[in-house]
């Protein structure tokens, strides 16, 4: 197990390094002269050079890269070129929206997908099983923004139960914050569930045909008991991997949902900063998201080793 963890950690650090170089080169490389981009059209060469010097942009790329990484490691994510705000502060403020949104969306998706997918697998070949498969298929085809708009129309406009969009901050009213999150979480969760149901269904179907499930029944478990006690634990193995992969999907989903419901989340902040050509803000925020996604994948790998003794032994 120790070797397994060490290998995964080495892979984790390697992936982070490659990702950071890629982000740095893509953003700097694509933007041309950063100072010129920041000042926009009509700026004099003198002004551009002055700004470039102020931010250290006239130094060699390698020096700038290591400077950036060094600062990131010490917790300094840089400052906005325009407003001089700290990126760390900008991000933290947005996380109180984005983290509850993404996390609750994922949890809701799983809470729906695991029982429904298991039910669909148990009832494969029956009308109810086929209906569930069809509904989840439709769910997969529905774009996240459309689901959001429909929910917003129904619960916000028609019934007037919940706000159609906008944000009440936690500090103003925790209840208001929760109310602003209900519809976004619901849209995100339903779409996640539609995708996950299919994976749960096929994982459970696969497990149902395994000999060890028959053995569990042969020594006294009922069909349902064997599925819940022996089957789900084994079905969890492929699902953990899928959930890890869905995290990236989830972040993509939050970009859309935050826009549809006008939530001041991290994704929307990033979009705004891309438009405003805030190079360092975008660069550091993207890196943060990458760190998050790769960390989740590391956790998934470690969890996999914990759940499956065969992985510990062989890899």
């Amino acid at each position, binding site marked *: 197990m120790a070797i397994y963890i060490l290998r995964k950690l080495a892979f984790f650090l390697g992936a982070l390094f490659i990702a950071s170089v890629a982000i740095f080169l893509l953003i700097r490389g694509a933007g041309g002269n950063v100072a010129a981009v920041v000042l926009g059209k009509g700026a004099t060469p003198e002004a551009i050079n002055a700004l470039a010097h102020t931010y250290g942009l006239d130094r060699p790329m390698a020096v700038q890269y290591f400077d950036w990484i060094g600062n990131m490691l010490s917790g300094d994510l840089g400052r906005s070129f325009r407003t001089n705000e700290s990126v760390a502060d900008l991000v933290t403020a947005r996380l109180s929206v984005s983290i509850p949104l993404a996390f609750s969306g994922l949890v809701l998706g799983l809470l729906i997908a695991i029982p429904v997918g298991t039910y669909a697998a148990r009832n494969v*070949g029956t009308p109810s099983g086929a209906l569930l498969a069809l509904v989840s298929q439709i769910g997969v085809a529905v774009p996240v923004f459309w689901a959001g708009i429909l929910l917003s129309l129904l619960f916000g406009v028609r019934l007037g139960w919940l706000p159609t969009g906008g944000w009440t901050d936690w500090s103003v009213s925790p209840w208001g914050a929760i109310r602003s999150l209900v519809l976004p979480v619901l849209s995100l969760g339903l779409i996640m569930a539609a995708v996950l149901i299919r994976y749960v269904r096929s994982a459970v179907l696969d497990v149902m045909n395994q000999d060890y499930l*028959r053995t*569990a*029944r*042969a*020594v*006294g*478990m009922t069909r349902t008991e064997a599925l819940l006690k022996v089957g789900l634990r084994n079905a969890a193995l492929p699902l953990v991997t899928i959930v890890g992969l869905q995290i990236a999907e989830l972040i993509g989903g939050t970009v859309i949902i935050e826009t549809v419901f006008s939530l001041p989340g991290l994704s929307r902040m990033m979009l705004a900063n891309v438009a405003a050509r805030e190079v360092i803000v975008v660069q550091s925020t993207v890196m943060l998201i990458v760190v998050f996604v790769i960390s989740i994948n590391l956790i998934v790998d470690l969890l996999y080793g914990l759940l499956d003794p*065969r992985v510990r*032994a062989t890899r």
Partner: protein
Amino acid sequence: MSQENAIEVRNLVVHNTALTAVRGLDFTLPAGARMGLVGESGSGKTLTALALMGLLPMGWQANGSVRHDGVDLITQSDRALSSRRGRTISMVFQDPLSSLDPVRHIGQQVSSVIRRHTQASKKEAERRTVDLFRQMSLPRPEQLMRAYPHEISGGQRQRIMIAMALACYPQLIIADEPTTALDVTVQKQVLRRLNTAVQERGSALIMITHDLPIIAAMCDTVAVMYAGKIVEMGPVAEVFRNPRHHYTKGLLDSQPTMDNIALDGSSRLASIPGMVPPLHSLPAGCAFHPRCAAATEQCMSEVPTLDDGPRRAACWHPIGATVPMEVA
């Protein structure tokens, strides 16, 4: 039913929407008796076993009656059956690696069976599991408790499966080709453990295999299946010495012995001509007639049934019968 019988099977039919794989089986196994069930792949042996256990794969259904421990297993609900499985009737499967839960400790898998069916505490169940492992001659039984199935050998895994099936002293054990997935070198060892354990408990045994010497060594009676029916049954020694059905004789003749194996390639090992007919297009009359040298007009149209007596066979022209008058 009389309590002396471990199982009474009457007109057992196993089918799905398209096929009938087991076509009317009748046999009775007295308590403690050991019966071999032989036949080629596809003859319905495994589906018969699964039907007795109430573990048929999805889509398959059993009809007829299976009396065991005072009830008809066919009519029982999954819940009612589950309280018997592993306690009064249990099964050893073919492939021990795929049949054990890969993510749970072996000790837990076996001791949970004991806890389920008895009042034993966790500690007591674990102690009895270690005892079982010891009875199965498994090395270092205490350490084995915390091992995973992939960490031990195939022979050890199958002995674990046997320990699991025997944990609660069942009246009947069904072993479905328990050594097919094992190395030849450990087959004998595993069978010996199974044999001893079954005898110590006084359990009845149904041994499914196509390995005839195993049947000869372990069973009192044998039933030969062909295309979903029993074509011959009787005491093992008599059936093997003087088979009455031509299929049984064919099976016996195709067993390798030191006499009929020639290493220079000029093998004298006999084989039954033709193939087992697919279930969806069984021939009329006796299902074996296209492959039978003794087949006549009658065999092509009329279905033979098992005749009476201790040496039953379903054949219009059984081997060793007196030649019909009109021909003589």
